[in-house]
């Protein structure tokens, strides 16, 4: 049943115009700096070897979390309000299967949008940008291939904190009755977390949005520690918000 539910979630996802709109936004936001770098004069200089990681910075910190919020509201709050959430349940799917299928599809979406960002960054950048100087991490210079592998690694790593955030979003989506409130409150949370990170550096290791931009790990004195923190904090968020969502859903009366 889980496989069939996941298939259905994909089917719905691909039928939504929003997904293609998200991709268009990523494409436009990627092409602007590329064109600026080419035609904006000497002040704006970007190189292809670092451009995808710079692109990850704004996309993972701002744009993708907003996409997650919109998608969470669509997949859960809107479905509940429209009465379509119950359709799988009355066809023998269990509540845990429905919840897990939605989480898996959300993770797939994050993966898909990150891969699109990465590929579009490389493809569009390769048309107008020079490769630039090789990567340097804590004094180690990476070859071109290793630089690409490192970039891919950082993109893949950012799936983990973004997944943790998406489960927080799903928890909120289950508990609010309007999609507008879900989007508003979650965007508020994104800004609140961002502000807390800036105002209280001591708290920032515990704030999930601190790990969205994995490109920043490059600047850390201890990359290994930073990755461990990322994994542990993400896991804590996932466990807490998945557990509460599951308990909520298990006991929820589906009245719409």
């Amino acid at each position: 049943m889980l496989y069939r539910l996941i298939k259905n979630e994909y089917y719905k996802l691909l039928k939504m115009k929003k997904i293609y709109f998200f991709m268009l936004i990523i494409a436009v936001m990627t092409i602007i700096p590329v064109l600026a770098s080419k035609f904006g004069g000497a002040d704006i200089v970007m190189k292809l070897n670092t451009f995808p990681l710079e692109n990850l910075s704004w996309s993972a910190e701002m744009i993708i979390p907003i996409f997650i919020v919109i998608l969470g509201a669509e997949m859960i709050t809107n479905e509940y309000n429209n009465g379509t959430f119950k359709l799988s349940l009355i066809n023998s799917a269990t509540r845990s299967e429905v919840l897990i299928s939605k989480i898996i599809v959300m993770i797939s979406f994050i993966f898909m949008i990150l891969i699109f960002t990465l590929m579009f960054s490389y493809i569009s950048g390769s048309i107008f940008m020079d490769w630039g100087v090789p990567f340097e991490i804590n004094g180690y210079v990476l070859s071109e291939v290793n630089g690409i592998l490192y970039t891919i690694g950082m993109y893949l790593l950012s799936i983990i904190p973004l997944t943790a955030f998406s489960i927080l979003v799903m928890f909120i989506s289950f508990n609010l009755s309007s999609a507008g409130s879900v989007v508003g409150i979650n965007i508020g949370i994104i800004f609140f977390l961002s502000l807390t990170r800036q105002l209280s550096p001591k708290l920032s290791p515990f704030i999930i949005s601190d790990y969205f931009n994995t490109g920043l790990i490059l600047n850390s004195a201890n990359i290994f520690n930073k990755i461990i923190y990322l994994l542990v904090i993400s896991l804590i968020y996932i466990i807490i918000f998945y557990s509460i969502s599951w308990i909520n859903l298990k006991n929820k009366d589906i009245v719409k």
Partner: protein
Amino acid sequence: MDNEILRIENLQKRFGNVEAVKNVNLKINKGDIFGFLGPNGAGKSTTIRMILGLVKPDNGCVVINGYSLKNDYKNALTNVGAMVETPSFYEFMTGYENLKLTANLYKDLKHVDLLKVIKIVGLKKKANEKVKGYSVGMKQRLGIARALLNDPELIILDEPTSGLDPQGKKEIRKLITNLSKTKNITFFICTHLLNEVEQICNRVAILQEGQIISNRLLTEDSNNKWIKIYTKQKDDVYQLLKDYEGVYDIRQSENAVEINVERDVIEEINTLLFSRNIKIKYIVPKVESLENYYFDKTGGKFDVI
């Protein structure tokens, strides 16, 4: 027991201070078209949602096809199709795509099965149009098509003709009757429309303020019968029969005397009246409409359309 498809025992549900469903007990047999009647707010939809596992009962149990919903959820719902209140769809998808989403949840359903149910509900020409352009009637039909997809033994329909014009209502009733006859599907129809139940159901239960206040066959099964004796000598008949053994109730109407009498006694009464030289125009069975029956039971809290 073998013939039983749905059993509800002591079902209870409270929302805050409101006791929505109070100790509901029901038994539905295979092949029944069961009408679940009640005024708005009586607890019908809550009961249906508990049958389908959408709302958790505070107490009681639901057994479908011998499987307890609580302990064997998947098996209990495997052969059930349902349309709960106004059927909901992904409006940005076509009718066919919406059905496909349900079909995807079952192992063996194929394109041909979708076409079959689309044909049954008469949506062949509209199946590839987006649902947002559908009329209420078309959505109801699509909802029924979806409920039919897994070839269920039991179909639960909540207000299946809600929002339809008289022609649409008639078509849905015809569809339900046909499906019951041709596929031997058991229907559990929740409605507040008396005539709907009267026309298609063979058994009816009435729910008021969360309680079953009546549960009976609509086909005649009683030992007693109401008959009307048309005569000019109403007073004589009344005096003669008011204490007669086997007569349970007697009333005088404008030009007849109505008696509730044991079936076996009817012939005896006929002979008695003849022997006392009472001139009888005719004796006819009194057809008690469901409407009258339920107005009696509920104190007139029903919509009659």
